[in-house]
């Protein structure tokens, strides 16, 4: 492999490709990932644009049209309260997207910062961070989130509080894994070399340690999106999550699930959107992992 990659490269001397360009090229080679990325972009665009174009808004009630099957007036039918399923699904999707990504980004950031810091510096910082991790793990998260959400009874921005709380109780396992991976990377020769080059500790963590566990972080991030959406669904089902008239995919699904056999349209629209959403996120996650990891199967061709 060495000889032919080098031979082929001699034709274009002195043209250097930056790391991000290389990653992008490798990412674009993965068809599934590109489809997933397009899917996510499309879903985000739909969430932003379509609410203004639809004949109904998600909180409008069309009295007299309760539990109607899809027709020309309501393209995807109505709910028990007479609200338009299409408008609610679009709105719910945007809520779920925002909650999912906010939670995933937050918890991955917290976990990799704390996990890597604990392992790289050791001593008292490791002890105190591990203590916080243990503390958060023994507190029953569902109960605490439910109590806080209940206490905070204004529906406005309830989703933001929910996202913060979900992230606050979702980072500990990853932080532990990041810590143990960092411990094994810490004594690698390239980390030592960077240290002896005079690189400050935060740069070593950011450039040598975190990128080398990025496979884990990306998988964690994608799984985090799914986890957050599902956790939000659970809490919303019991009335502790996103509060009416605001809505999310979770509340819609739990509402539709009860009537799924008799009025399937309320359930199926948000469920299909949820499946597509999670599949797209996962495809992007896989693609990113392969693109970032030079040891993965597409490695030799970059």
């Amino acid at each position, binding site marked *: *492999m*060495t*000889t*032919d*990659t*080098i031979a082929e*490269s*001699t034709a*274009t*001397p*002195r043209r*250097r*490709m930056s*790391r991000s360009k*290389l990653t992008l090229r490798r990412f674009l080679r993965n068809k599934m990932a590109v489809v997933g990325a397009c899917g996510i972009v499309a879903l985000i665009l739909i969430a932003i644009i379509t609410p203004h174009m639809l004949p109904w808004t998600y909180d409008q009630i069309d009295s007299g049209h309760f539990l109607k099957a899809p027709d020309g007036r309501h393209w995807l039918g109505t709910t028990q309260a007479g609200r338009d399923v299409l408008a609610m699904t679009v709105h719910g999707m945007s809520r779920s997207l925002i909650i999912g990504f906010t939670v995933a980004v937050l918890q991955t950031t917290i976990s990799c910062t704390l996990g890597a810091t604990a392992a790289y510096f050791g001593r008292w910082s490791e002890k105190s961070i591990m203590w916080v991790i243990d503390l958060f793990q023994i507190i029953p998260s569902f109960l605490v989130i439910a109590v806080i959400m209940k206490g905070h009874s204004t529906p406005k921005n309830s989703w933001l509080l929910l996202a913060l709380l979900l992230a606050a109780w979702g980072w500990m396992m990853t932080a532990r894994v990041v810590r143990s991976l960092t411990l094994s990377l810490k004594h*690698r*020769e*390239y980390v*030592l*070399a*960077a240290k*002896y*080059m*005079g*690189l*400050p500790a935060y*740069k070593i963590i950011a*450039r*040598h340690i975190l*990128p*080398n566990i*990025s496979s884990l972080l990306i998988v964690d991030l994608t799984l985090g999106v799914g986890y957050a959406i599902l956790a939000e669904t659970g809490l919303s089902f019991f009335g502790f999550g996103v509060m009416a008239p605001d809505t999310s995919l979770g509340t819609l699904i739990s509402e539709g699930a009860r009537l799924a056999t008799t009025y399937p349209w309320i359930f199926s629209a948000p469920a299909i959107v949820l499946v597509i959403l999670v599949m797209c996120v996962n495809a992007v996650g896989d693609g990113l992992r392969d693109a*970032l*990891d*030079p*040891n993965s199967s597409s*490695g*030799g061709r*970059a």
Partner: protein
Amino acid sequence: MSPILSVKDLHVTFGSEAGPVRAVRGLSFDLERGQTMAIVGESGSGKSVTSLAVMGLHPDSARIEGSITLDGEELLGKSDDAMSSIRGKRIAMVFQDPLSALTPVYTIGDQIVETLLIHSPMTKAQAWDRAVELLDAVGIPDPATRAKSFPFEFSGGMRQRVMIAMAMANDPDVIIADEPTTALDVTIQAQVLEVLKKAQKETGAAMILITHDLGVVAGAADDVTVMYAGRPVEQGSVDDIFYRPQMPYTIGLLGTVPRLDHSGDTALPVLEGTPPSVVSLAPGCPFAPRCPLADDSCRSIEPELESTDSPSHRVACFKAREISEQGHSHHDIFPTPAIRTSQYADLPRDERETVLELSQLRKHFPLMKGALYRRQVGTVKAVDDIDLDIRRGETVGLVGESGSGKSTTLLEILELSKPQSGAISILGKDTATLTRRQRREMRRHIQVVFQDPMAAVDPRMPVFDIIAEPLGAFKMGKAEIEERVFDLLDLVGLEASHADRYPQHFSGGQRQRIGIARALALNPEILVLDEPVSALDVSIQAGVINLLADLQGRLGLSYLFVAHDLAVIRHVADRVAVMYLGSIVEIGQVDEVYTRPTHPYTQALMSAIPIPDPGVERSRQRIVLTGDLPSPANPPSGCAFRSRCPKYAQLDSAQQAVCAGSAPVLSSCGADHRVACHFGEALTVL
């Protein structure tokens, strides 16, 4: 006498995504009882695959053609069950890594008993007695009790002895030893090779010795097969191969290895390039791209293995006749690059500036015990009060076995902080007095090259970023960095187009060059080299060694060169320090120390190293050290070496009391030659 093992036209092919991997192509040899044949080659040359094929241990996906007969019985095509009754009974194997070759959860005795009971009808008690007998035969002290120990209680050398005991347990016809000593220290290697010889003598078995170390081959083998890219390229008796090689690859291998018994004032001849991948071989001789003699016929047709002057000496090379007739040596065939000499070379050592000085440097690790209440139960003296100085433009070699404290010394220097006790002074500044900012600034002047070229560079970064990193850390402008990186690539002999490749697209030697370029980025004055060539293939080593010598000449660098390979040190170093259990036992000008080693440990170390010359090997008197390195947590009183010292054994009791009573200090025994031994006498061992 008919051969016991006969391999005819063996081909082994694996399937892979990139195409068929033709690991072995057309290997034939005959092996008689009591004979040792060495298979020599670099990584990927097909030598290990051959041994697996003979054992029937190859993966199912491998396609094997040809014939392997054991005492007239065809082995290829036998079922796994049928092979199981042959493996361990008639063909036994000694693996490279003794640490993972034994099951950790069973005792040593149980594992030997198991091999015995599978193949021969005997009672458990009989088998146990035989196991103890075998352990005694391979030199395990107190075998009856040691048989009840678990593998983790044994050192690497001891475990390899156990492996040999298991191999000879059933009186095999053939013993295959796959790099049996590569993972071991030199003094242990010498012991294990002796044991292997003894095992062969006792069982009368034929032996296949697979190795890359030409010194081991010269001392242990009768016949040699040299493999390159899956093909045998030269076969013959050990004298044929070492004294009358006719294939340029063999000549190159023999010529490019630094020799323990030659001083290294000149550059090593270089075998350019790297071995080809066996996936997509171009037509013609696989060695042609690296061979200075190659012409068009070499590049179009692959030469067959043909007999030369003597029928047993067979060579696959169109140029063989020309080489033997004109008596070409490696100097005639392979280019010896010119190496610039340093501007400091003419300056006497005393007039040069001291760039690095260690005085009474100490690093002790406390041994702690207990979970809740932790208390110190002992001290590991990893580095114990050593003195060392490096002058500008010189190379100081630091040698010693694993556990001698070389690496700890390096890390202590590179930390640039206040040592436990003693002082480190770099370019005249004591590191203990540095502020944070000064310490960072100091890092410009001292840089490091690590051993494992794969682990030393971040696999996620393209080469440009790797080399640019130290420049960025010291806030250089973007354009300046770009220019400097391309200059550095050029300096270490890489191409500008390599800048945007990832490290795994490079061979070991090229990766080591990347590591060197990175270390040189900040224009350091001192380079600390931690075993920079020990992980490289033999034919690649010479290029890196020459590069280091050339860079030293051009840039006036000072090197602290740590290695366990004394031959490499002899070639590169101006002065050498020998470490044993955290102390320097002998230090001095390199030729002085090598020609007149005075400490018994230095003598033993040098005599343990095999020299790639069969004549020398046969006539050499070996000093074989007994036992292993003692635990650094509990070294013997007085002189730490006395437990293994061959000299100590010959002393009378009054003199022995001196050794046990006080630790010797370094004292002068010649011009620039100091030794720490109460009764040191110079001895010629080479």
